């Protein structure tokens, strides 16, 4: 595998470089700190657009790969690569980071340097997670991300920030430590077919697909469980979601935007990248249970959103509902639904990010998130209310806007697999309309209920600068979806393709693989696992 340029490394580490640059600046030089951070993030966004240029749509597998040895033993490589699944998520990250920086321009007043430093380090971590193709490298980025997020919530958050920060870290660590164990276990198992074992994801994938590496049924279930737990906490899937409202509500606006926009996607990304392709039999076996949890999440998240008095909490719970929808799509194992899930991940990043931004703008003016403190805002601030309505409509899935495309694809795919699942999915869409429009009505329509609100200023130029790109994206992704979908199509088919296992061990792979299979202690078990895994639905 040849190294195909340095673009991925540059995109990954440019923010880190920028954060080192920040270190060189004086701590009280707030203007230049902000400018440097924004310049870095924007430059990285432009660079990440070059990925589109280098990326050949319709080609399966990873592109622009970089593979360099890092640690000799155990063999950990620096292996990056991009495919249709990660491409847009990386661009989503680089797109949201400058917006997060812009929205913190004035609202972050103390320890400015550290704030932007953390934000840029976080960006490197997030991009690294999406691009890593080595399991340990992936884990390193995955964990590294925790630290800046912990500080972002803990230092610049609201009243109960410490509680929220600790809860966030403990939940995530609980999942990720088990994932580390599973990664090492998988490494040990791969030692049976590759001398010394490997952490390389594509290699393991190939070994699994051609039957040279077979996981005994119980082992596969346990490995799936460990990976799934880590990702389900991140998604978050009901009942592991309780960290999310706390983290969202207490985080500063930029933190919420990144958290909702990108961090939650890592859970669903992990499901698509690791759980399904590596452990198809276990995925299929447990899919009904996962779907039940996802459906509970959809309805529960929506119902809780409906009764929230706090705007930020409402948006946070709506994430639980929306992400449940994505998980449902993923576990229907239908290419169209998976396509929709990928699309919905992007939509949710943009729409929910925008909702949090608007909630943050309201907070900057009134220092509260309580819905009852607002009312009739359309009168003093027509522009912001218009933006708010537009984003709400996108989030609830109005046709012509982005949310519709993703939800439609998920429902279309899921319906063909299981009608009940699709029904619950549709229920979520309806409930989303209820809680979002109701919230919007209480915030923006009617008479101005609180006198203070009469004099609130409308959008500042900076706020317009933040919201316009998001709204353009919302509209573009609603009407120009082929631009995006053409690049994710191959990847979503690839996921289904990767879930296939050879029917008969003897037919699979090369002849050299056969004796190894006989030697495997749990050969009989693994044969049944394979049959279950590849059996027709």
């Amino acid at each position: 595998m040849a190294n195909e340029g340095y673009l991925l490394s540059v995109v990954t580490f440019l923010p880190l470089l920028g954060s080192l640059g920040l270190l060189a600046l004086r701590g009280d030089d707030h203007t230049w700190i902000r400018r440097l951070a924004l310049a870095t993030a924007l430059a990285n966004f432009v660079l990440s657009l070059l990925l589109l240029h280098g990326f050949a749509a319709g080609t399966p597998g990873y592109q622009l790969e970089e593979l360099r040895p890092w640690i000799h033993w155990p063999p950990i490589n620096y292996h990056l690569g991009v495919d249709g699944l990660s491409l847009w998520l990386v661009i989503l990250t680089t797109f949201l980071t400058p917006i997060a920086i812009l929205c913190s321009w004035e609202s972050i007043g103390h320890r400015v340097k550290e704030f932007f430093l953390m934000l840029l380090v976080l960006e490197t971590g997030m991009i690294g997670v999406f691009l890593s193709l080595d399991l340990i490298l992936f884990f390193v980025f995955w964990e590294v991300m925790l630290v800046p997020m912990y500080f972002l919530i803990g230092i610049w958050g609201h009243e109960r920030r410490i509680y929220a920060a600790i809860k966030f870290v403990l939940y995530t660590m609980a999942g990720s430590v088990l994932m580390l164990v599973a990664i090492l276990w998988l490494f040990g198992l791969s030692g049976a077919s590759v001398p010394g074992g490997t952490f390389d994801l594509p290699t393991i994938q190939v070994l699994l697909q051609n039957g040279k590496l077979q996981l005994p049924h119980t082992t596969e279930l346990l490995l799936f469980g460990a990976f799934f737990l880590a990702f389900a906490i991140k998604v978050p899937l009901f009942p592991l979601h309780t960290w999310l409202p706390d983290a969202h509500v207490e985080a500063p606006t930029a933190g919420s935007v990144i958290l909702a926009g990108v961090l939650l996607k890592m859970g669903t990304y992990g499901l698509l990248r690791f759980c399904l392709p590596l452990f198809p039999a276990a995925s299929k076996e447990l899919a009904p249970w996962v779907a039940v949890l996802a459906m509970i999440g959809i309805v529960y998240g929506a119902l809780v959103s409906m009764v929230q008095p706090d705007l930020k909490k409402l948006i946070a719970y709506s994430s639980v509902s929306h992400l449940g929808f994505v998980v449902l799509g993923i576990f229907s194992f239908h290419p169209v639904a998976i396509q929709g899930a990928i699309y919905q991940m992007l939509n949710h990043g943009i729409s929910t990010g925008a909702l949090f931004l608007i909630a943050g703008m309201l907070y900057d003016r009134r220092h509260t998130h309580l819905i009852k403190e607002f009312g009739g805002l359309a009168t003093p601030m027509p522009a912001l209310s218009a933006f708010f309505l537009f984003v709400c409509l996108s989030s609830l899935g109005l046709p012509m806007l982005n949310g519709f495309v993703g939800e439609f694809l998920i429902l279309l795919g899921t319906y063909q697999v299981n009608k009940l699942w699709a029904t619950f999915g549709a229920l979520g869409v309806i409930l989303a309309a209820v809680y979002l429009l109701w919230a919007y009505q209480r915030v923006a329509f009617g008479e101005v209920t609180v006198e203070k609100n009469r004099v609130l200023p409308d959008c500042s130029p900076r706020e317009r600068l933040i919201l316009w790109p998001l709204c353009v994206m919302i509209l573009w992704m609603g009407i120009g979806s082929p631009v995006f979908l053409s690049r994710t199509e191959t990847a979503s088919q690839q996921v289904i393709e990767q879930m296939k296992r050879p029917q008969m061990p003897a037919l699979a792979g090369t002849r050299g693989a056969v004796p190894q299979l006989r030697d495997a202690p749990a050969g009989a078990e693994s044969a049944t696992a394979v049959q279950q895994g590849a059996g027709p639905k």
Partner: protein
Amino acid sequence: MFPPIQDIYRIAPELVACLFGMLIMVADPFVPRERKGAMGRLGLAGALGALVAVELMSRHAGAAMNGLLVVDSFSVFLHMIIYGAASLVVLASYDYLERENLQQGEFYALLFFATCGMGIMASATELMTVFVGLEISSIASYILACYRRAALKSHESAMKYFLLGSFATAFFLYGVAMVYGATGTTSLVAIRAAAAHATDHHMLLTLGFGMLFVGMAFKIAAAPFQVWTPDVYEGAPTPVTALLASGPKAAAFAVLLRIVFTAFGDASSTWFWIVWISAALTMVVGNFAAVAQSNVKRMLAYSSIAHAGYLLVAVAAAGAAGEESAAGIAAVLFYLVAYALMKVGAFTIVSHLGGSGEQRLEIDDYAGLSTRQPTTAACLALYLLSLLGLPLTAGFLGKVYIFQAALDAKLIWLVVIMAVTTVVGAFYYLRVIWVMYFREAQQDWTPAPVAPGVAAVMFLTAAGILALFFFPGPLMTFAAHSALSLR
């Protein structure tokens, strides 16, 4: 009879340490009070000299002193840890002794004697030599623990350490006697050979091993022999605590590894479950007790206990792996280096922040440290994250190696316990970070500026922790090589 010159090289680090210890003691009365700083420089020279001697020793592999000691890559590795940690402690204690107005000369002399004993333990291939090394290091450490004469806590610490330590050493000695009774020898290699035939003394041998294990478990602070640790670590002068947490632990692990793999290498079924149970208990006790601590030194002491548990997991993994034990032993060795760096660094900062009379030891005292001394806070955060095992630190790779060894040996339950207790660890390590970064600074107290020695230790340990993550190759190769020399 004078030993051959080769043997002199093979104990060169110990000789240098002893010579400098004596030199400092003799010179001390002749140095006027206002020029006691010279003692610190002499101490540093001695520590660096000993490190050079380790290099000299490494070129002369082989048995020394009629087979009482051996220089192999394992003992060189351990010497590196022990003398490296001692050098860092010398650097860190100069400022502390000045501030507390304590005798400088004696301190360094005792520190050298203690280190010398640990060095002997690391090379010993014979149980009585181990015992001699153990006593040399223990007696010097008892006095060091009591070095803050004016403080009651220091007395309590030394008394507890002395009484319980003597008990443990007695157990060890009793174990030596039993093993001798069963096999007729105290040489580790000969014990292995004799144990293969002495089937009728099986009971006695097992009992003997149990006693030896008690002695070592005390030194490494493994449950259920860990009770002394928090009290002793808390009361001892903090630089001494840094030494106690790193040096003796490494030396005791060296002895434990030699005993289980050289002497009892064929009988891993005898000791495997003892180590397994002790590892599980140690991790649980250490981590859960640490959560409840409000004193930094006690918290770090419990964290030391927890780490002893992680290390024992690797020992158990090496034992269960049979012929493939090298991976587990290498994991222990790698982790010991990482652990020594983290603990010496952390305790040095605790000593620096403690202020005069060690008054600022509560976690709450660190409130807002990130705004007062950003570098200190960042370093302490790094050590804590490394202790927790987050990536970008040596602690992460150390944990990976241990997990991997344990998984290869199919010790699934130990792995699960280790994973769960690690998450518990997140709670108390992160608490210190949150106090440093999320709380407002207290107005009534400002920490003293960082002394050059402390700064040097901070820099060296932090750089080491990061370097071991990004470039673990050379050290891991060395560790794997050392692990092979055990059999």
